[in-house]
């Protein structure tokens, strides 16, 4: 029940983000979208204002790129561990220098992005699946349900927390970037 409540709470926050673009506690992705020309992506306060989004003793991130984050947040390390699953995908994109318009195009009205847009940078699905072939207990990028062609957005959400879609039925504890 506790878990269910926390899921509901999380959903409520996500839905809140979707509808309350001006809510300063839950920074809206739209802000990042409009701010990205002038705001540094590591400047949390630019969008989140006074909300506490980093752990207490965290170093200043204002001028950091994703590469800088990875100096501490290495994959496989106990602490602080990788950032996978801790920050939304579009933060990783923004910190890596990917602008909103590179996915959404130059528009004021951001529309959902076709999957081929993801593949244009991340490569062919079959090649991607090869990269995770050794992940246990199952390759997350190849399944009976979708072959290698699962829609990226089934798991890798950009503007809300990513989900372990497989884990809804199977005991696969994947950490999803």
């Amino acid at each position, binding site marked *: *029940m506790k878990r*269910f409540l926390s899921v509901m709470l999380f959903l409520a926050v996500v839905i809140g983000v979707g509808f309350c673009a001006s809510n300063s506690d839950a920074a809206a992705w739209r802000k990042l979208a409009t701010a990205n020309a002038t705001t540094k992506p590591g400047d949390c306060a630019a969008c989140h204002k006074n909300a506490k989004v980093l752990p207490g003793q965290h170093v200043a991130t204002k001028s950091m790129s994703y590469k800088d984050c990875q100096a501490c947040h290495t994959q496989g390390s106990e602490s602080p561990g990788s950032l996978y699953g801790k920050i939304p995908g579009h933060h990783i994109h923004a910190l890596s220098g990917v602008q909103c318009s590179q996915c959404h195009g130059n528009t004021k009205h951001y529309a959902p992005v*076709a*999957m*081929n847009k993801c593949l244009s940078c991340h490569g062919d699905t079959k090649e991607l699946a090869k990269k995770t072939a050794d992940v246990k*207990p*199952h390759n997350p990028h190849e399944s*009976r*349900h*979708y*072959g*290698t*062609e699962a829609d990226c957005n*089934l798991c890798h959400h950009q503007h809300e927390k990513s989900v372990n*879609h497989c884990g*809804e*039925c*199977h*005991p*696969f504890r994947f950490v999803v970037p």
Partner: protein
Amino acid sequence: MKNGDLNENKKPDQYTESVLEQGLSRRNFLRRSAMGVAGTGLLSLPTFASVGAKPVQEKEDAFGKSSDGAATLSFLPHPKAIADSEIKATLTFDVVVVGAGASGVPAALSAAENGATVAVIQKAPFALSQGNTGSGVALAGSDKAGIEALVAKVCEDNAHRCHPGLVRQWAYNSGEAVRWVIDRAKQSGSPVIDQGNVQHGDVLNMNGYKLNWVTSFFGPKPYTAGDGMRHLAITAEKAGVKFFYNMPAEQLVQSKNGEVLGVVAKDRDGKYTKFLARKGVILATGDYQNNKAMCDYFVPDVKNFGRKQMGKTGDGFVMAYWAGGVIEPIGHTKMLHDFDGGPAPMCDMPFLAVDRDGKRFVNETVEMSVLNNYLRDAHNAGHYAQIFDSNYMTQAATWPGKLVPPEGLKNYMPELSGPKKGVFESLVNTHVADTLEELAKKLEMEPATLVASVKRYNELVVLGKDDDFGKPAKFMVPVEKAPFYGIHRTVRVSAICSGMLVNENHQALNGEGKTIKGLYVVGNLGGGFYGGVDYPLTVYGLSLGRCYTFGYLTGRHVAKL
């Protein structure tokens, strides 16, 4: 078809009449609001606006409405206008099938074998289906009275809310259709077999009349009907069917007088292709279990259950509704099973059953296929466990179902490594332990609660009467001799099997009960075949058998137009 013709020239049968009255259609709510304001027939009907045309009542038509017109339904968004400039290609076929599943693939192949050029548009990257068994009645070796008794039994299972003519159509045509599916899948190397009467011990004799079965078995797991449909799709390709994968259909193309002319689908680049159909579009997009808003509206009982399928978002419902079709009214039939946690033939055996806390909750003669009704809350969410002790092979030897001996149960135990056969390894959930406390931990329940439940159960066994739930005494056997076994089952949504109103040709009807030219609906998107609270398990493989049969018949019918 000699039996059960649904002749549209006659007065509608009571099922059709009821769905026309209670179901959801554009015509239906407009008619009611018109009656309230100015009498029938005075409103102009935007229903049949062609795609690309500006909707007549744009503001009111942003979403579909409930049958009384009072509620706006967010899950029925009006198709957006697509300009011709956005269409990168237009392709023309005789028949366009939307959805490559257990009904769509047979429909496509059947149409091709009857001379049509056929396209299949599929959202997923390949054909998909679930389950193993598809059943049909072999007319040879069956008494006609037996077939009629079977029809009556299925109608009873459906709480008498189905269309008997459609059940009858399945009964009289399914033997031929299932045999055809087996033959055509084999042609592409499928290991499918005809199991005949093996799974039908309970339905070989109906009211003293004989029945004989044709039973396609695509298995054992992990091979399923999904693999079977992929094999059948290879046969279909050889027969000339063109498959377009990763290509979700977005909306139907209609003429101004309402005839369905084709489908617009979107590829991964976000570009549109228009598929025109000279003879007809066959929608076979399946159910809507992954569309939360639709489930909450039509079948709120499934709210807390997991889903077995993915991507079943009810696209076909939206398309058919805006083309003027009628969705069966609220109270859709659901199918929730778990054949994977432990052996399937033991799923209905009336062992002690406990809920997620370890508490006995039901008379265990209630079958697995309806147990979901006792486990609807967010905490239980379909979880329960069957509990028995090491005497089960002797104590349950005469019970209905089939026992799997201890050695065989190991195949269903996730904690035992080593190769498993005939199962999905990530879904097995059977456990054994020397104490009940240890078993409870493995079943993820409170040890003290399970111990107390077993203690109480054993007291009732000694008493010789089930004072708590009234289970027959012959099924009350003690749980006392270690090791103890537990099968942790989790019923999840396999399918929702209510859909669009159709006639005997599986042609969609509009809110006035008239056929929509060019639009056919099969599979779980088709209505009229069920109607009860739950999908019945009297005939194993009814669902796939029905899907194959109606796909087979409809493909042939549309090809011959």
